[in-house]
């Protein structure tokens, strides 16, 4: 299978984690964001929305990272979607939707303001960061309550609801968040962590970096996140030039 995109994208990481989890054979076809590869006709033919990732499996071309994730898991590890189990699959879907609509939009605002913003010279909008942190706390409270009664989000076994938000949830393994939300780092699960190790493998180990939040001063420390990014960059340096060109 082929995965098109630039390696630092969390959405491509979503696809890669599932491919690793599935033990599928795949190769990454690097694209250059700065070079505008996603707007070229050959890419628009793959994804008319001009986005990444795109997955090619034989004559099937898929886009939207969650659709890709579902396809890969359905093909190789349907148990992670609880395929065949009406109630189980509903819970997996529910928590995947929670990640899509409550976690990702909130975390993304923090990431783009605090991590990618500085790389591309965009000033941080602290009001947005503060608002997002407040929303994130609400979401974490819901996760905390759920993970107090269930070992994993969708039940007592690892499912797709777990590994999929891994990249973004890795950003939560920060000091203050861990102290306050004791359950969450532990609950990512062995499976999730193993997949994460594979993605971050070439000597750099886990992507367990984090977003260190200092609330009183209303600043977000991204030290550990930068470490994650530099790890990813080192791993995929032969594929991606994005940050070098963006500077």
């Amino acid at each position, binding site marked *: 299978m082929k995965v098109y995109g630039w390696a630092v994208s969390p959405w491509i990481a979503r696809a890669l984690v599932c491919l690793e989890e599935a033990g599928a054979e795949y190769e990454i076809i690097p694209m250059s964001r700065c070079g505008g590869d996603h707007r070229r006709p050959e890419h628009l033919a793959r994804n008319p929305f001009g986005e990444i990732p795109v997955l090619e499996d034989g004559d099937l071309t*898929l886009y939207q990272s969650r*659709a890709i994730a579902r396809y890969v898991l*359905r093909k190789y590890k349907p148990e992670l979607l609880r395929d065949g189990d*009406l109630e189980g699959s509903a819970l997996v879907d529910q928590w995947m939707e929670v990640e*899509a609509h409550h976690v990702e939009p909130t975390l993304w605002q923090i990431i783009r303001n605090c991590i990618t913003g500085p790389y591309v010279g965009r000033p941080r909008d602290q009001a947005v960061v503060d608002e997002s942190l407040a929303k994130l706390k609400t979401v974490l409270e819901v996760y905390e309550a759920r993970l107090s009664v269930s070992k994993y989000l969708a039940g007592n076994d690892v499912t797709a609801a777990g590994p999929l938000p891994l990249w973004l949830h890795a950003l939560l393994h920060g000091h203050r968040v861990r102290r306050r939300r004791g359950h969450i780092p532990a609950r990512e699960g062995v499976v999730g962590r193993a997949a994460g190790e594979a993605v971050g493998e070439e000597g750099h180990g886990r992507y367990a970096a984090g977003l260190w939040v200092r609330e009183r001063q209303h600043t977000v420390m991204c030290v550990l996140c930068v470490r994650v990014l530099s790890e990813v960059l080192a791993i995929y340096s032969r594929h991606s030039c994005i940050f070098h060109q963006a500077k």
Partner: protein
Amino acid sequence: MAPMKLYGATLSWNVTRCVAALEEAGADYEIVPINFGTGEHKSPEHLARNPFGQVPALQDGDLVIFESRAICKYACRKNKPELLKEGDLKEAAIVDVWVEVEAHQYTSALSPILFEVLIKPMLGGTCDQKVVDENLEKLKKVLEVYEARLSKSKYLAGDYISLADLNHASVTLCLFATPYASVFDAYPHVKAWWSGLMARPSVQKVAALMKPSA
């Protein structure tokens, strides 16, 4: 067997998204209204169904789930799995792609418009035309992609109707209650696809329930 219970107000396009799926799937269900005016959505009973205090939520026997698109998938899987094509890897994947596209391309551009035009005035606010205009431009770009797609296949995922098409019904009905419905005029295949959907009893039921006001 007791009917499924769909909790929420029919004014909400997230609730009526589920109605379209439940109707098309031929599910046995009833709608249980949740009164936002009295804060019922924040009551302990409702928070037990949806910890975010939002609607919809669905109860089917012992199972309680929230998030409209998860509810829609459950309804289809239980009553009309062909709407998801889950027996066929390739077709199911294409349905998934367009289910995601509805959420992250179409509705993500449309719902800010609907909020400004339909909801904000109800809450005593005024419509931010800049937000409407920006999102209309985004919506047009999305509709260009839809036009190209629907000129090659009758429905979004192929020549068969799927949940991907149905998930558009509630928000599109709301669009037609705003002054911006004419945005579809430039896209004849999209218009034809929408007319086809509108003719379905499931979508007509949603239209009757919503009675969206401009």
